[in-house]
């Protein structure tokens, strides 16, 4: 058990981080190089102001007409993404591990906040899952991997929460927690989850295309 744990928090963790980081960097650089060859339209009408506006209006809640049409969904999506990013980065237990291994740590949030955000993350994830099943226009678009990625994203949070509160078999829970998080990290660059970086590019492009060329707000 201890050996497995050491493996997961040692070499496997670093491998996951490397695949995650380099995977995203390589995918992005590849696409940038490809765009220079095949997507002249991106550069011909590039316009920093419209690009930034286009991104900002989609990372500020309800700043786009589309979000205003679906306020509940918007609320849930923001709750989901904010917790998704904040908890792993600012959890004190994670920071202690960082401190132990590289002697550096980020700011830590109080455990009660982390707990709350985790519950919010899982709750909003369940909402997104139900919405996917219930609404016909989304169900028809959804494939097995869309369900799988959503569940996999929620899994480290659920197991982390259970492990922290020592509900269920602690050691096994912890191992599943780490393992599922590592699988998730590895999958990000190779799946639609790459949108964590690529979102900024596609949003900027439509900002150029509609705003830079035509003055139309793409939000």
């Amino acid at each position: 058990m201890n050996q497995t744990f050491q493996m997961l928090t040692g070499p496997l963790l670093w491998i996951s981080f490397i695949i995650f980081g380099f995977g995203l960097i390589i995918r992005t650089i590849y696409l940038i190089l490809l765009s220079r060859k095949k997507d002249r339209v991106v550069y011909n009408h590039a316009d920093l102001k419209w690009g930034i506006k286009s991104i900002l209006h989609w990372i500020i809640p309800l700043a786009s007409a589309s979000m205003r049409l679906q306020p509940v969904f918007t609320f849930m999506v923001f709750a989901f993404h904010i917790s998704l990013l904040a908890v792993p980065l600012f959890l004190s237990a994670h920071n202690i591990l960082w401190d132990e291994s590289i002697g550096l740590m980020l700011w830590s949030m109080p455990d009660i906040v982390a707990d709350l955000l985790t519950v919010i993350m899982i709750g909003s994830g369940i909402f997104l899952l139900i919405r996917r099943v219930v609404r016909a226009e989304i169900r028809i678009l959804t494939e097995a991997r869309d369900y799988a990625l959503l569940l996999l994203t929620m899994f480290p949070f659920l197991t982390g929460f259970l492990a922290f509160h020592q509900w269920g078999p602690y050691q096994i829970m912890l191992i599943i927690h780490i393992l599922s998080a590592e699988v998730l990290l590895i999958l990000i660059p190779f799946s639609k989850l790459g949108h964590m970086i690529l979102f900024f590019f596609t949003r900027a492009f439509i900002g150029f295309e509609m705003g830079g060329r035509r003055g139309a707000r793409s939000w």
Partner: protein
Amino acid sequence: MSKISGQPVDSSKIRNILQANSGARIRTWLGICSRCGLCAESCFVYLSNDRNPKLSPAYKFLNTLGEMYRRKGMVDRNFLEQCFEILWLQCTMCKRCSLYCPFGIDIATMIAVARNICFSQGVTPEKLSFFSENCRATGNHMGIPADELIDTCQWMVEETEEDYRGVTIPIDKKGARYMYTINPREPVFYPQDIANAAIIFSVAEENWTIPSKGWDCTNLPMFAGDRTLAGRVVSDVYEKAAELEAEKVLITECGHAYRSLAYEGPYLAGYADGLPPIEIVHYVQLIYEYLRDGRIRIDPNKKLKEPITYQDPCNVSRNGGLWETARKIMAYLAEDFRDMSPNREHNHCCGGGGGILPMGPEYKPKRIAAGRVKAEQIRASGAKLVVAPCHNCFDQVNDLSEAYMLGVKALSLKEIICEIMIVPDKFKLGRQENDHHTR
């Protein structure tokens, strides 16, 4: 649909087109679409057809171009015929969904590529391919010979002589400020539109000309999926304008012509910088400038009193940037202007765009069904008149009025201006001539 039944699908040709278009944008769009379904609520086809889940923009691109990439071009004719339904009957490429997609995925661009692939296999609307052949043979989609256009212009000048004096239509005049390009539907179905344009130019004392070649501003091959011919169509206009040393190219009240010549055209014709070689001006911009500069003045007593609304053509407003310009015009023309909702760059397509209107009566039921959202918008505005500076919108609004009993009438800017502008004395038939006639 023009089917080449029995003929096998040329997968290598499809693969070549897929390969040529497989840039960073399309790869990213296909790769990150998260199936969130937000685009559905933005699509008038989806909304008009009782939210049929198969009509969301994401469903449409994933099941056409997305599927072609997934199968690496190994598709059969049956699949292409299903694509036909989606690409030409369920999407007008109005680009509204891109505004409502969190990632800003440009679905219209992918639909255009998929149309190009279908076209390469002979799957394309019969009427659009007929119009394309006209373009190939005569340089305009109605197949009008050059001398016939000149005759029509001559005839229209004669028509104006009943009410005006000194109206002319200069043909192939060099060094004009505007080379005026028209929709070939005008000489055939609405020749009065050409006469109205001539009257307005004359009153504004404009230096303009109609070219004898390259006068068709429309681009139906672009909608048919024939990118090569579409490029030639825009080149004809650019080249003629250069030959005539015109300062700018002016486009009549037509939506897709503006998108073609000002935005898509440079890419279709192979201009690396994506910019047209000459300034392209839409009629909406021209009329606004005339009114602003006092070159055309409106008779205050004749200002329109009936409730009136403005149909934002997708390719003039959202895809052309002229929504505020149009509203400034309305303030000059009408006392009771009522905007539709949503409007400006968030307007809904009328349902007649993307080539479906010229595809003929066979597809009218689908076009009218898809126009339900627009019909409801018009009804809610309470307007009796609808200004539509686009031939597709114009005809569609009239069709919708009939089908949904809206009791509205579509109007072009030209006919309103001619009706209510102040005509300076020098263009009026003077007393002298009237006397002469009675003597």
